[in-house]
């Protein structure tokens, strides 16, 4: 019979409604909603350049300087744009062309570009014909002048400028959202389209509001109001009468607990429904999932109220209940903070991002910018290059280039700057000397990927594709010389690299650079070649092999097509298979033979959607966000089949599995799927590993290496049709370092036992957005960050905590003599 308990719950609502604090809270909520109601937005074409649109100022300066001083560029699109800049900037650009280190404010460059959009006299259709025009620009170009609107005209002008300066600008949405308040536009606008705006609201704004408005302010208010419920009930004149009624003590207490949540329920309902209506009417975001905030907020409150309830039973004092609950909140906050600290500085940086193999040896690059190899004897990862967490260095994914030789590079501050700080040297790791690094050839600036294709070492950056021979790279590093750098003592040793490798290199580079400039400053040609190198163009040994007419634009992806000697390249809406020039093993010629476009596929749209590319001997896998995955023939890039992303997740990375015509796909939920094609059918099989951070195909061993749980690795046999297919054949379970031990044996148990209230905002984000994981970050895959929202963990930990607290409270209440 639930009537008595229903009466207790209903009475709690009446009590809450009679509370003055509740009405004060109501009024505060109404004022807040009224203040928020005039907010609005409108969506426009993205036209205005902002400083952050300029992906790399150095590159832009170099490019514009070249356009200004190179006679060949005088009538090209680049030259025409360069001429539109004001005289003072042009003067500085000329200084740049002369090799001076001139600082030009990005804002000034952006403002000049914006000014040039008002008068398009710089435009010449012929000059722009040789540029790579996006589909949107082509469509706008086809519009007659009398039919184009002013916003469209400005948009067209922007796209023309972007076409003239390829690779300079960050890929931005074609549409921008501008927020307004009571009809007045905010000075700032969001360079995102409506869809991204909705994602932003759902994944970040609402969870933040949940954290601060619901998770902090209202919860605290709720605790203040409800702290007296239990002490009041325990007053003799009230309690003895209640206990004399034919009701269960446990149920009475639980009813009081549920009723205590009435206060927060009433407040949260108004706030969330108000926000939902405002988002719907004012921002056109009708997302009923926002209403999930109501139960989650009440659930969050229940965690704290369970503590307040137990304290109230024990001490019968509202003040003590509030005090104990606040202390508990502070404890949870501290544990959450410490947990976040360990996630960010201990666990996160140790996560494996890339793997390279040489026989049974393995070298990894971590998310924290470290390079390590696995030492079997100590069962631990040993540092090859250490990282300073403040610098946010980036390791170019290591690749095996020869026996006992792995090539990589360390881009100092690469996470913040496409070109990093200082120059970039190829590092050849020597397997015979515990993979000690040996700096060698100068890499093109901004190199993000290296490929070893048929004896050629190919460097890819956003400016082009440059190659040298592997033998040259190895010999220049001095690894195979008798007097190695390390032993000779006159070169950069690993210790130097470890301590401040980039700094040392910078000093060396500067001297080297000055020398180069001094020698080459004998004519315009020398300036130009130097400028080109600054932009990430050719270096002395790395010569461009990018076919003429190919311009690289983010999102940029490349994958080696097995042993075919081809490189599959994706550049914003264009997929190509490039046949690389043959090499005889010697140095590349000064004017290298460019690669040949063996197959070319233009996508129907040229959106800047996040893209994943993988290739095997026979097939290419292309996945773009919000689109089905394409399985293409690697020969002619014909689409063989399309299939949805496995598990409705976004794809983080994919690798081709040799000649098996299968692909391993890592999704944002940290799981690996093996996709196999049989005609028009694609079957996807989920592997057992969880919390996977990286996958790589270990071709010689015919295994898929799966990095998971921070720094563990499983090798899964790829033996199509064989008995051992997809069986784990080797594992690495390294010993953990001191801080990791603290994390494993102290912090993690503490976090497990403490209700993770802070993580409930992730549950909200997942519930509202409908996605449990997603990718954020820059264009290149190294800059991307996979966000896996913890949905179940906080709910389970909080539920368990509530159950324990209520059980203790019920036992105490049932057994105590009042």
């Amino acid at each position, binding site marked *: 019979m639930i009537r008595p308990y229903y009466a207790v719950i209903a009475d709690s609502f009446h009590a809450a409604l009679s509370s003055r604090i509740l009405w004060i809270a109501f009024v505060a909520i109404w004022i807040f909603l009224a203040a928020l109601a005039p907010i609005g937005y409108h969506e426009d074409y993205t036209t205005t350049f902002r400083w952050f649109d300029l992906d790399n100022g150095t590159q832009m300066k170099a490019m514009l300087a070249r356009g200004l001083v190179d006679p060949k560029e005088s009538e090209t699109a680049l030259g025409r744009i360069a001429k539109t800049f004001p005289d003072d900037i042009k003067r500085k650009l000329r200084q740049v062309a002369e090799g001076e280190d001139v600082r030009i404010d990005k804002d000034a460059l952006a403002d000049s570009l914006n000014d040039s959009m008002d008068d398009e006299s710089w435009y010449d259709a012929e000059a722009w014909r040789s540029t790579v025009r996006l589909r949107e620009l082509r469509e706008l170009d086809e519009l007659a002048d009398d039919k184009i609107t002013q916003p469209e005209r400005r948009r067209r002008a922007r796209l023309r400028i972007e076409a003239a300066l390829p690779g300079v600008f960050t890929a931005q949405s074609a549409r921008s959202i501008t927020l307004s308040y009571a009809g007045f536009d905010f000075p700032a606008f969001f360079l995102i389209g409506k869809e991204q705006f909705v994602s932003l609201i759902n994944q970040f704004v609402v969870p933040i509001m949940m954290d601060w408005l619901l998770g902090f302010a209202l919860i605290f208010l709720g605790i203040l109001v409800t702290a007296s419920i239990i002490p009041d009930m325990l007053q*003799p004149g009230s309690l*003895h009468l209640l206990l004399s009624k034919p009701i269960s003590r446990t149920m009475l207490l639980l009813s009081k607990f549920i009723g205590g949540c009435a206060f927060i329920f009433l407040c949260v309902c108004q706030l969330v429904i108000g926000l939902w209506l405002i988002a719907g009417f004012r921002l056109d975001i009708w997302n009923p999932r926002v209403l999930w905030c109501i139960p989650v907020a009440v659930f969050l409150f229940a965690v704290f109220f369970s503590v307040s309830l137990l304290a109230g039973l024990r001490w019968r004092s509202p003040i003590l209940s509030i005090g104990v609950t606040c202390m508990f909140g502070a404890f949870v906050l501290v544990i959450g903070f410490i947990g976040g600290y360990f996630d960010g500085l201990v666990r996160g940086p140790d996560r494996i991002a890339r793997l390279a193999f040489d026989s049974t040896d393995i070298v990894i690059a971590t998310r924290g910018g470290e390079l390590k190899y696995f030492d079997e004897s100590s069962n631990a990862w040993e540092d090859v290059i250490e990282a300073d967490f403040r610098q946010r260095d980036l390791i170019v994914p290591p690749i095996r280039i020869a026996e006992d030789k792995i090539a990589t590079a360390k881009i100092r501050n690469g996470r913040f700057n496409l070109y990093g700080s200082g120059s970039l040297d190829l590092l050849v790791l020597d397997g015979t000397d515990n993979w000690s690094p040996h700096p060698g050839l100068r890499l093109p600036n901004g190199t993000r990927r290296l490929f070893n294709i048929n004896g050629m070492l190919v460097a890819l950056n956003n400016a082009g594709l440059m190659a040298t021979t592997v033998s040259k790279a190895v010999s220049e590093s001095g690894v195979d010389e008798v007097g190695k750098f390390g032993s000779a003592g006159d070169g950069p040793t690993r210790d130097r690299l470890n301590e401040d490798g980039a700094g040392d290199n910078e000093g060396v580079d500067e001297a080297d650079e000055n020398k180069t400039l001094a020698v080459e400053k004998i004519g315009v040609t020398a300036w130009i070649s130097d400028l080109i190198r600054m932009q990430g163009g050719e270096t002395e040994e790395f010569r461009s092999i990018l076919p003429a007419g190919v311009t690289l634009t983010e999102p940029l992806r490349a994958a080696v097509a097995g042993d075919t000697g081809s490189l599959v390249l994706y550049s914003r809406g264009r997929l190509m298979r490039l046949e690389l020039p043959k090499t005889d093993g010697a140095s590349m010629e000064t004017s290298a033979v460019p690669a040949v476009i063996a197959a070319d596929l233009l996508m129907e749209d040229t959106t800047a959607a996040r893209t994943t590319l993988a290739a095997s001997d026979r097939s290419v896998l292309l996945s773009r966000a919000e689109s089905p995955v394409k399985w293409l023939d690697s020969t002619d890039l014909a689409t063989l089949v399309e299939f949805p992303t496995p598990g409705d997740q976004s794809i983080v990375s994919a690798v081709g599995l040799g000649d098996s015509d299968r692909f391993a796909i890592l999704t944002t939920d940290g799981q690996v799927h093996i996709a196999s094609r049989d005609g028009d059918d694609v079957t996807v099989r989920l592997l057992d590993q969880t919390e996977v951070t990286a996958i790589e195909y270990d071709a010689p061993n015919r295994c898929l290496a799966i990095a998971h749980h921070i720094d563990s690795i499983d090798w899964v046999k790829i033996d199509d049709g064989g008995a051992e297919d997809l069986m784990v054949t080797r594992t690495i379970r390294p010993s953990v370092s001191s801080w990791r031990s603290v994390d494993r044996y102290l912090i993690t148990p503490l976090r497990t036992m403490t209700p993770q209230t802070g993580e409930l905002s992730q549950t909200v984000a997942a519930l509202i957005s409908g996605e449990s994981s997603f990718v954020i970050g820059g264009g290149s895959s190294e800059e991307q960050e996979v966000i896996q929202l913890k949905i179940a963990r906080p709910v389970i930990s909080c539920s368990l905590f509530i159950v324990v607290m209520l059980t203790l409270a019920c036992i105490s209440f049932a057994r105590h003599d009042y």
Partner: protein
Amino acid sequence: MQPPIVDVQKLQKVYRSFSLTGRRRIEAVRGVSLQAFPGEVFGLLGPNGAGKTTLIKMLLGVVKPSGGTAKLFDQPIGSTAARSRVGYLPESLRVDRHHTARSALRYYGRMSGMSSAEIHSRSNELLKLVGLEGRDRESVRRFSKGMYQRLGLAQALLHDPDLLVLDEPTDGLDPVGRNEVRKVIDRLRNSGKTIFLNSHILQEVELVCSRVAILAKGEIKAIGRLDELSHRDEQQLVVEVLADPPESGFAEDRDLGDVVPDWQAIFGDQLNDAIESIQVGGVHRLTIGVDDQEQINWIIDTLRQSNQSICRLQVRRESLEETFMRLVGNDLPGENDLPREPEAAE
């Protein structure tokens, strides 16, 4: 004889507490046995700290006994079946401030499992009965203590219980209110309800209770009808006889020492107890313990034979207060004897 409604056998309650100074053990109720029968108004008397409230809490299932057994309506105390037939008026009723008298009755009615219709009809009736008619929509914040008591009585009666446990029901009421409560109790008794009354006001208990139990230091000192409790064999004869006529002035001015009769000489050795004699306004008041009517007759005959002029004569039995004082006088707690735990205060 009807089976008892309240049947308590050797009920015990020991409070134990732990503190830095050590363990504390308080025996609040020590093997109490009592019975209350249908239609009875049973009074529970005792000084502070006697264990009355603890006993009532045990009957209501609020406190668990440490030993012994107790049943209400032949059901174990604390059982839902037993509690559903009990109406309880606590000593200091506390109603949440957001209630009116009517909403409070609705709330408590629901707690007793009543339907809305039942609550509505009973509320009208009871609000009228306890004198809160017309003030039923008023917030209890404005209620006086007397009004709270009336509301408490109404809620105790709401579900028409067979046993009413009233803890100080007239506390805070004015004389008129007390009278009304007494009338309500009389009416309930007449309608066959059993009432278990805990009160400090001895006169009230004398007026309404058919049987009482006197509790002191957790033990029953006496139990039974009021006339059974008073010592019948200790009845006293109070006789006032005129002193000698005054020769001059006021009697108070005279030296009476010389004229006080020698009562020992008059009565001889026939009386067991000593005779108390006091001079009050020209009369001698004799208080003599007597055993029976024959002895009373002999005393009167003896006084008349000795030429004493009897002006007033009264045979007096022991009052409830005297009985109470006689039984618990030595057990009244000193300041240091009072238990410190509030639960064990009585």
